[in-house]
């Protein structure tokens, strides 16, 4: 156990930098999510921490010690790859014991620790199974067990659940959370799935185009995105413009008291989440609009509403609205997020 500190890391393949000025701290015993779309550079960061890639500049500090010059096998950080790279010529037990064997542990100790980890990962009894005789979920758990058994200071998980189906994925998320809570291994959990990142950890780090855009609690990222790109990544789709005058934000769609913002007369972008907009067929509150189309999504219905020169997307439990119908939208001021400055 120990903490992980990355300071101003820049990493590149060839001449193009992929990660720029990346800084992140994961505290001892915690699990943090590194979230970003495919190609953002998440795997690249993990490979650098694991020692499989040298950063151009910046410091990697594992458990208080600088790790930049250390080869991967000397680092107290273990990476679990996205693809379960289980050795096909070894059975489950041998795969899990591989790392311990590399450390030169005795056969007895290896057997004992493997047995314990098999239980923890719900694999009891599968010791002698061949790898190709395992299901996808079991393979994923063996691959996780193979790293856990080493009790590393830092565990690096690269999208460990992306190849599993929805039900299995949910079960595995809970399993990983339970194991992490029990073992208290400092974990950096990589995912491209925003919901997964929010549910897995108390701290989420959003990576877009090789740069950290926001770090914070799941609620902060979800409700108080730092910029429109972050909001967009979390499913935000309603953006509009307004002006700030004496601590009040005025737009065509809503008027919001914004005491925290001081800039006067600036054009600022604001957003509201689709599920926060109130929609009703009649009444006199809010702005008028016309339903463009609707799309039934189960628990909610997605409704596109044309209001003046803008289309608002609304997620609401109502299903009886028709295209062409005239409706009223109310944008509650406390749900509107105003971005500090135009990017």
């Amino acid at each position, binding site marked *: 156990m120990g903490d992980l500190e990355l300071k101003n890391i820049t990493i590149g393949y060839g001449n193009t930098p992929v990660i720029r000025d990346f800084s992140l701290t994961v505290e001892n015993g915690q699990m943090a999510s590194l979230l970003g779309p495919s190609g953002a550079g998440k795997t690249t960061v993990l*490979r650098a921490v*694991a*020692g*499989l890639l040298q950063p151009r500049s910046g410091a990697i500090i594992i458990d208080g010690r600088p790790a930049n010059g250390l*080869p*991967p*096998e000397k680092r107290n*950080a*273990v*990476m679990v*790859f996205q*693809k379960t*790279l289980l*050795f*096909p*010529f070894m059975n489950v037990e041998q795969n899990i014991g*591989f*790392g311990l064997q*590399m*450390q030169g542990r005795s056969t007895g100790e290896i057997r004992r620790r493997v047995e314990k980890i098999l239980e923890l990962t719900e694999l009891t009894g599968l010791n002698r199974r061949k*790898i*190709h005789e395992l299901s996808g979920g079991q393979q994923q758990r063996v691959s996780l067990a*193979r*790293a856990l058994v*080493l009790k590393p200071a830092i565990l690096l998980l690269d999208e460990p659940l992306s190849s599993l189906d929805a039900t299995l994925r949910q079960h595995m998320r809970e399993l990983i959370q339970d194991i992490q809570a029990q073992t208290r291994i400092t974990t950096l959990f990589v995912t491209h799935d925003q919901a997964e990142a929010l549910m897995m950890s108390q701290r989420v780090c959003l990576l877009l185009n090789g740069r950290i855009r926001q770090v914070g609690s799941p609620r902060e990222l979800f409700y108080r995105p730092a910029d429109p790109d972050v909001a967009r990544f979390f499913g935000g789709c309603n953006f509009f413009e307004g002006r700030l005058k004496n601590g009040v934000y005025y737009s065509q769609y809503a008027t919001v008291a914004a005491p925290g913002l001081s800039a006067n007369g600036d054009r600022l972008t604001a957003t509201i989440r689709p599920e926060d907009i109130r929609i009703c067929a009649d009444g006199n509150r809010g702005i008028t609009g016309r339903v463009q189309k609707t799309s039934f999504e189960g628990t909610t219905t997605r409704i596109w509403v044309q209001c003046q020169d803008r289309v608002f997307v609304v997620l609401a439990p109502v299903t009886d609205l028709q295209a062409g119908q005239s409706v009223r939208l109310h944008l509650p001021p406390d749900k509107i997020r105003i971005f500090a400055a135009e990017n």
Partner: protein
Amino acid sequence: MAAAGVGIAVLLPFVSLVMWSLSSRWFYPQLWPRQWGLRAWQYVFSTAGPQILAALGQSVLVAATTAAISVAIGIPAGRALGLYDFRGKDLVSVVLILPVIVPPLCVTMGLHLWFIIMGLAGSFFGVVLVHLTFCLPYAVFVMWGIFSNYNPSYEEQARSLGASAWKVLVRVILPLTFPGIMVAGLFSFLLSWSQYLSTLIIGGGKVTTLPILLFALMGSGDRPVAAAVSIVFVAPALLALLFSARYLGGKGIAGIR
């Protein structure tokens, strides 16, 4: 049916070889030997026994050394060719295929002069070296193919789990490519085993492998003896082939990706 047909076609020459070695009188148009006898085998095991045994040992030594070197070079070379793109990759494949398509006699004659200058002519190592010019391309090509279907992330995963570079080679790369290594080694061994001309020229009669002895014995015109010696020559190669047959199919390589 087809397999049986192929089997018969492959085995047919051996049947007549065995018949020849067991005959003592067998003249043209007769379909069957007139008289059977063990004279040829007595000759092989007693009169020429020590000579054949020495040649057998020499052949095994030359072929095993050649195969070992081929594989030892073939693995890193095939890995580089299979995993990385670099300038001059096409040139490498042309250079590799050259000794395979140019008649062995030309290659050997061309090398002979240089071997004399370097003092390698007539030496064991010289013979191994000339065999390598024929065997190494096969080993490299086989390993190139293996490493084209190979996921190098296994190595990174092993490193991250605490394996040093050396342990990764022994515990991960070799087992993952084992079927390919067996095929490459076997090809090299058999190719070296059957070399005659190159051994004769470079060895200059000083390195007496089994084919060299075989041709000498055949020259005397004794067909039954020649047949018996031929069987002695083919048997170890056949054994090696049977021993490694399970690696020749695609099955052994299937688990890698």
